[in-house]
């Protein structure tokens, strides 16, 4: 079944001069699904989002929004699109309601319709009581929510969100996710970019981007599977000295520091043997490991592993 695919990218390429910013990126996102694009700054996440909303023109490939080809029917394709850019700017000397009126008018919501729509949207994002506050006087979290409200004033079925919760506190992120889950239940398809691994875990599917390409894609729970049974967590005094020793052990593939502990990546099925080897090497060096045991991998482990390859 393909008719509920709301966001589709086919083999997108984008170059800036001789730099390839987006390399052969394809995506399919269905109604009710949130897709998380992860990757470091400069990986191409924002460029993909700008290609999807038509702010940039691709060099090759095609974009379909709600089944409509963006290049051949740009207005129809974008009619159902809400886009929240990373550095979204509101009019700080306008009130919350005036800002929404502006975005409603841009979206062609006519006459008196805008007021009811704005009211509903503000209630949805839990900001109704701030209608008459100047946008410039809102906290960071509330600006974020107003940005989302502006992006969804026309009740789009597609949301493109560029790092929507970057730098906001966990309380605000929680509120944001509750809103998003409600929208998804109503059939919206969303794509968001995020630098937070735990946020990516909340997506139905995630794609890891690096240097313009999607290196790996899938459901978060599935992506970590190949590292299952291949991670050890070591704690102890002088953990950095222990890390140096661990790097010398041939059966240890890589060592990752985590502050007061380290993660060791090992080959599948070698857990018991490697634990013994590490224990012995640490003891021989006159150091003390307080615990060496298997750890369950998370998306960050997967990401680091991918970037090392």
């Amino acid at each position, binding site marked *: 079944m393909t008719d509920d695919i709301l966001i589709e990218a086919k083999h997108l390429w984008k170059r800036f001069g001789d730099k390839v910013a987006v390399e052969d990126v394809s995506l399919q996102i269905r109604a009710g699904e949130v897709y998380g694009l992860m990757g470091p700054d400069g990986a191409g996440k924002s460029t993909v989002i700008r290609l999807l909303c038509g702010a940039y023109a691709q060099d090759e490939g095609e974009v379909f929004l709600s089944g409509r080809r963006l290049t051949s029917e740009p207005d129809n394709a974008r009619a159902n699109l809400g886009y929240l850019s990373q550095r979204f700017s509101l009019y700080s000397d306008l009130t919350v309601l005036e800002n929404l009126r502006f975005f409603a008018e841009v979206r062609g919501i006519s006459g008196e319709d805008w007021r009811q729509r704005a009211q509903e949207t503000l209630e949805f994002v839990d900001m109704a009581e701030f209608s008459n506050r100047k946008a410039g006087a809102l906290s960071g979290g509330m600006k974020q929510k107003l940005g989302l409200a502006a992006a969804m004033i026309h009740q789009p079925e597609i949301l493109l969100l560029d790092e929507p919760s970057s730098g906001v506190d966990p*309380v605000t992120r929680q509120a944001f996710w509750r809103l998003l889950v409600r929208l998804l239940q109503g059939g919206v398809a969303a794509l968001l970019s995020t630098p937070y691994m735990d946020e990516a875990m909340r997506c139905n599917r995630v794609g890891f981007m690096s240097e313009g390409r999607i290196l790996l894609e899938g459901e978060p729970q599935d992506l970590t599977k190949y590292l299952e049974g291949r991670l050890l967590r070591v704690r102890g005094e002088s953990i950095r000295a222990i890390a140096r020793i661990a790097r010398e052990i041939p059966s240890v593939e890589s060592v990752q520091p985590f502050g007061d502990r380290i993660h060791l990546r090992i080959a599948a099925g070698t857990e018991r043997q490697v634990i013994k080897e590490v224990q012995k090497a640490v003891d021989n060096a006159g150091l003390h490991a307080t615990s060496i045991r298997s750890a369950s991998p998370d998306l960050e482990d997967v990401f680091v592993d991918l970037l090392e390859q």
Partner: protein
Amino acid sequence: MVSDQDDVVVISEGLTKRFGDFTAVDNVSFRIRAGEVLGYLGPNGSGKTTTIRMLLGLLLPSAGQSQVLGFDSVDEAEDIRQRVGYMSQKFALYDELTSFENLTFYAGVYGIRDPDELTATINLLGLENIQNERASDLPLGWRQRLALATAIVHKPTILFLDEPTSGVDPGARRDFWDLIYELAESGVTILVTTHYMDEAEYCTRVGFMRRGRLMAVGTPTELKESEVAGAVWRVHCTPLLASLDFLETLPIVRNVSLSGNHLRAITEEKSSAQNLEQALDAAGLRDVHIQETAPTLEDVFLSLAGN
């Protein structure tokens, strides 16, 4: 202001900064002991940078006072700046200069002319291969390392790092924290701000900022014990939002949040998984599966913010 502990190197007492009618930093007090890595955690705009700028004497406080290495932040700011390293959020690098030239420039500012000292810094941060590249050509992760190099080239005893890992990839973040620990092991005291909860886990002690106020300071373990009094549960069930709404109505649940494809609930006491399971079942929610889990610093933040 006299420190009652010899090894206290930073003292902040009631530091406050108001901009017009906005209070950016509100009565913030804390101490840092020599050799600590103090993580200063909070969202953008919570007052982290403003606090650092007051400690360094770059900004006058509206109220309160602070000392760094025994020097007063207002009256003896010059003495402080000679002895500390500061890496600001917007790395202060000269784009037109190479890495080596940037480093030489900063060393010169501090009166360092010995080429061996420059080489030592380059080796410590692994900058050998990018010495001759222009700063503007470097990827963010390397710019970050170079910025750190310029902040430590004069061997400061305290280092202030303002959001050093913002925007770099996870691998570079871990490597950077490895460097932070290497510096800490060599005796440098570090104050580092971040909005990544997972990075705070790496710190000796953590302070949580929200809306200008320092909500709590302690070791990660202390904070989890003191702020997350009961137990933390991973709750799988469907439908997710209905379950969330329902759990919020239960008196034994202090906080419940969305977490990936499941919920995370903090209960008042060590109540059993069975209690929660039965309540969810009785409410007609399906596929209920509950598992106790360890508290994280995000749980601490949510608990603190909820109070």
